[in-house]
């Protein structure tokens, strides 16, 4: 059974189309990155998965319909929106008490263990904590919940690079195993490229690319060439070309790496490079689409 299965998912806010027929299938045990520009529909998609909004189309999460079976679903799903959602008035000890009081899968000792590694005091109110501490606290709560699906919507927004790295390290080392599924959106996609198993590009409410990391690494190649060899490289039909310090960088989809290596330096691109090539129709002309 796939963890998430969506077919023809649609959501409109007035005349704005937030989701325009999204088909998505996420198998159990995957870590999926949802990548898209602001307003692409990422958060709307996550909110539909969590049963927080009404939508059209078919959607099954862990075999449940989020619209009608949200109360059953919510025990098996954890959710971290940006760091601002922990109520500012609550104290650390109170939030631990409360989650332990209402969540059957919450392991309080585990959460206390995570908190012991931080400087967060039990008696502090959330409003007294720094942004980084609030996200550490939220992560400690979520990591102590034995959920099947974890949904992270910009979980590291506003955090410095050290706090972001710590966040994803804990996520991977202390939480993830093959029986869990994680769906994450972030603007700092390069930072989590190494932990993803799959990624999806979403733009204008539609999925524009769906790819596993294995396929990504074998399929896409980035070539850096000297000006004299650019013409030869262009003949291999790159999907994008850009100039950096007088050298051309070309992005190829399903090109022969040996052929490319003869022309210059071949690297695996970052997801961000591919994202710019696929989604940014303004600045970086998508040659692949034109040809």
């Amino acid at each position, binding site marked *: 059974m796939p963890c998430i299965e969506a077919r023809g998912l649609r959501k409109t806010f007035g005349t704005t189309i937030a989701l325009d027929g999204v088909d998505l299938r996420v198998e*159990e*045990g995957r870590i999926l990155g949802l990548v898209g520009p602001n307003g692409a529909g990422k958060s709307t998609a996550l*909110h539909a998965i*969590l049963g*927080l*909004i*009404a939508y059209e189309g078919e959607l099954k999460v862990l075999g449940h319909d989020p619209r009608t079976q949200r*109360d059953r679903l*919510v*025990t098996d*799903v*954890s*959710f*971290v*929106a940006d760091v*601002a*959602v*922990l*109520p*500012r*008035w*609550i*104290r650390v000890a*109170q939030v631990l*008490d*409360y*989650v332990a*009081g*209402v*969540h*059957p*899968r919450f392991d309080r000792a585990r959460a206390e263990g995570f908190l012991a590694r931080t400087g967060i005091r039990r008696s502090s109110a959330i409003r007294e904590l720094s942004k980084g501490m609030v996200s550490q606290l939220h992560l400690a709560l979520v990591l102590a919940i*034995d959920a*099947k699906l974890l949904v992270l919507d910009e979980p590291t927004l506003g955090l410095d690079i050290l706090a972001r790295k710590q966040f994803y390290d804990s996520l*991977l*080392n*202390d939480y*993830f*195993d*093959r*029986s869990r599924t994680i769906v994450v959106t972030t603007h700092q996609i390069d930072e989590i490229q*190494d*932990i993803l198993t799959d990624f999806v590009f979403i733009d204008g409410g539609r999925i524009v690319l769906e790819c596993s990391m294995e396929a990504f690494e074998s399929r896409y190649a980035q070539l850096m060439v000297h000006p004299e060899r650019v013409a030869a490289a262009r003949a291999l039909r790159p999907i994008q070309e850009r100039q950096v310090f007088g050298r051309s960088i070309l992005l190829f989809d399903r090109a022969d790496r040996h052929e490319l290596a003869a022309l210059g330096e071949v690297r695996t691109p970052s997801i961000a490079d591919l994202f710019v090539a696929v989604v940014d129709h303004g600045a970086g002309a998508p040659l692949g689409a034109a040809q």
Partner: protein
Amino acid sequence: MNTQASALPQPSVPGQPAAPAPISAARRLYWSVRRELWEHSSIYIAPLITAAVMLCGFAINSIGLPRRRRAVLLLDPLQQRIHIEKAYDVAIGMLLLTALLVWLFYCLDALYGERRDRSILFWKSLPVSDLATVLSKAMIPFVALPLLVFGITVVTHTGMLLIGNAFLLVNGLAPTTSSQLPLPHVWLTLLYGLAAMTLWNAPIYGWLLLVSAWARRAPLLWATLPHLALVAIEKVAFQTSFFASLLTYRAMGWTTEAFALRPRGGLLIDPLNPIAPQKFLASSGLWIRLASAALFLGVAVRLRRYRGPI
């Protein structure tokens, strides 16, 4: 990347975490009500401050008590009781007034504040249904506040009695007797009055909670302006105040419906007015009001289902 997977305790069936001990609905409700009391500490702090102020005021006032008591003792027993009980009634009135303000602001903030500070996304990530959440928030005006008012009144009255008696004894007068001031009877009447008021006002609390779940801004205005506008339109257009008297009856009707007589001017709980639970329970108005309260709460639950941060 998944090397640590083997180090973690493996569930018995892969992908199927072992069934956790279920959490009863009552336990979720209990923690949710506690959460409300953490967030809205004014629920108990405001009445406690009122009680403290009342006790201080009574203590100052008690300096003249021996002189007044000598005059009161010349009256017949019924008049004695009315005079002595008056200060205790005022305490009830002040505590009720405080509670009414707390009621109003609590109800309007209950389902609005969590959307305004975005914490609704956190609460909704936990397995507490919208029904349980709305019920836990309704527990505050329907159960917690009446009980708090009752408890604090009992403590305040006891304090007043002790202070008053101390002043009387020092001045060589006999302490207040239970026939001059039948406190247990006053308390029982108060308890009944609080229950009647809560049941009678149920649709008001329900309406306030509904507005707080619905409004995108200014819930106080949305909750009150439509009513005031109707009163104003009626007054201007027809020079009548039918709607205004209807509103007054809605808010204060329990004082006439739940007791045998009309209360004396200004008193919410008239200790000499016999209670009339049969009359109260037989009034069709009460049952219509309870039904509309249930309807309003039901709508509030539905509204919260798809409401997000504002």
